[in-house]
């Protein structure tokens, strides 16, 4: 199914708001939405909620023969999938541009930056190495999938534990988690992507665009950095023209954001480790908030009811009279269909009408004002219309 296109008035509204430095959800230009990182019961499973965007990453490992060109290094494999539940526009069969872009960006951010020590994944050189596979699934699309995916992927990699291996000559023994504790991966640094959306040919810049802002933007600049202020990847997309200073400025903003996000990831990892050590409950089921109403209790809230009648009358008196919205109300009785706007019939009677208007002038118009046109198929001759009379103010006395 195709995605609902954005209407022109929505587009204009968003652009105007951005010009006045306002965003739909009230954020500042350089603010991120709320990031929530939760881990599952298995090692290597992580869900990231960036505002309403939700992404799930799972890491798994397997012993395989290595590549011929690199016999002493392990293999990293990344795969991102746009689940159909994320957005009505995502279809499983289509190889869309977005999918290719996200996959390639994730690969470049994590593989080329060498965040994981692939040499430590080697078991028997030339014969058996670990293949680490990261699968990222997009569960809900509300903009900025790239950042959410990169945070999820790196958190999952930090959380993952691979089985311990013992080598005796050529024999490899893989220990199950019960026999020996699984071993974490050796991660050098944590690259995190930060997305910048450009509007009005590069005049305005927003960090972490939501879905509506993404539909309106001119182009996107994704900078992946780690907390040591090293840039891991830069990618501009969309047909925007950038200046060198803009890119430098974005990299400075990105370094600030990345250090904040890295702190958050470390805290989440630490929390999870604590909970597991203490033997408490962990996993997704625990972290999803139970939005269930278990009791309805309202406190007695005192309301000022003194002199309410006088104040109400005053307000009514000082208020302006409502403007006459409809000159001649057209009432459609129940059971009638109608095509058109219900204005006066202008078919073929134009000449007569014109004459009438010319002669009648104001009289005719005044008459039309009072007259109420009723369109109805009912065969009743007389139609009674109830006019709203001036109601006597019924005051409510508070129950004492």
């Amino acid at each position: 199914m195709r995605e609902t296109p954005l209407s022109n008035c929505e587009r204009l509204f968003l652009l105007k708001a951005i010009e006045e430095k306002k965003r739909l959800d009230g954020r500042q230009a350089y603010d991120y939405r709320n990031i929530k990182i939760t881990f599952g019961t298995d090692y290597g499973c992580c869900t990231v909620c960036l505002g309403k965007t939700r992404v799930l990453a799972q890491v798994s490992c397997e012993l395989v023969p290595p590549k011929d060109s690199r016999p002493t290094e392990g293999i990293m494999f990344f795969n991102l999938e746009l689940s159909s539940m994320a957005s009505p526009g995502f279809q499983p069969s289509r190889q869309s541009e977005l999918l290719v872009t996200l996959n390639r960006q994730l690969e470049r951010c994590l593989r080329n930056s060498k965040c994981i020590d692939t040499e430590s994944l080697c078991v028997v050189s030339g014969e058996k190495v670990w293949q680490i596979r990261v699968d990222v699934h997009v569960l809900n699309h509300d903009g900025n999938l790239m950042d959410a995916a990169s945070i999820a992927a790196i958190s999952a990699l930090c959380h993952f534990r691979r089985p311990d291996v013992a080598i005796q000559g050529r024999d490899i023994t893989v220990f199950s988690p019960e026999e020996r504790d699984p071993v974490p991966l050796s991660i050098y640094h944590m690259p995190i992507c930060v997305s910048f959306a450009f509007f009005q040919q590069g005049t305005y810049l927003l960090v972490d665009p939501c879905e509506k802002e993404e539909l309106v933007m001119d182009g996107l600049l994704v900078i992946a950095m780690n907390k040591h202020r090293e840039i891991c990847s830069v990618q501009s997309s969309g047909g925007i023209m950038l200046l060198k200073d803009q890119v430098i400025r974005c990299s400075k903003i990105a370094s600030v954001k990345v250090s904040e996000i890295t702190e958050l990831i470390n805290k989440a990892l630490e929390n999870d480790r604590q909970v597991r050590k203490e033997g408490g409950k962990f996993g997704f089921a625990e972290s999803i908030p139970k939005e269930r109403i278990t009791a309805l209790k309202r406190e007695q809230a005192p309301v000022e009811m003194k002199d309410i009648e006088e104040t109400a009358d005053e307000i009514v008196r000082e208020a302006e009279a409502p403007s006459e919205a409809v000159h001649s109300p057209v009432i459609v009785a129940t059971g009638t269909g109608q095509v058109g706007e219900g204005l006066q019939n202008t078919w073929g009677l134009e000449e007569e009408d014109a004459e009438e208007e010319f002669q009648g002038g104001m009289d005719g118009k005044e008459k039309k004002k009072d007259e109420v046109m009723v369109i109805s198929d009912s065969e009743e001759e007389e139609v009674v219309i109830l006019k709203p009379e001036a109601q006597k103010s019924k005051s409510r006395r508070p129950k004492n």
Partner: protein
Amino acid sequence: MAGLELLSDQGYRLDGRRAAELRKVQARMGVFAQADGSAYIEQGNTRALAVVYGPHEVRGSRSKTLHDRAVINCQYSMATFSTAERKRRPHGDRKSSEMSLHLKQTFEAAVLTQLYPRSQIDIYVKILQSDGGNYSACVNAATLALVDAGIPMRDYVCACTAGFVEDTPLADLCHAEESGGGTTLALALLPRSENIALVQMDARLHQDHLDALMEAAMMACKGLSKVLDSVVRQHLQEVSVLTRE
């Protein structure tokens, strides 16, 4: 590949160039008679061929038609014999799709698409020999092909790669330098206005070095634009001489 020295003490690179020197560029326009525009470029050992068809009516799905602009359709492919090992999938894999997307975005920004509403411009690029700087060679070849086809553009689009070794930025990397593990920055620039159409960087680089690296890439692009300009003027001269007779 730790033993490979990308920059020697005297300041010479693997192929004997200086740090900011570009590779030798040779280009030809009007290589194919059938196409509206075509060009062939050699940057060192990297050879790329670009062919432009258009502007013509939108073929295939009519739904792609834009009412106020032309649609640019790019396809990037590598010949199977272009790399050291035979390439099994010349096009359709993720890297080629990504390259095609990037080329499309670069040229959508540079070509004056408003002049051709409801039409399509096809750009096909093929790498015949790959020795680093694939994207740059494609962009330069496509620029020349568009000029050959007579399609109006804002400015020449010049692309170049740059790398960083021991605090020295290198311009125009070859394959060995790219895969040596250092930083690679690919930049597509419109030289006169200094607008960057596309910037792409892989591998780690400290934030403070970004400025120097981008500056080196921009200087290389400007140098390249002069070369492309001279190629275009020479081609025009040749063609006008032939038609006069």
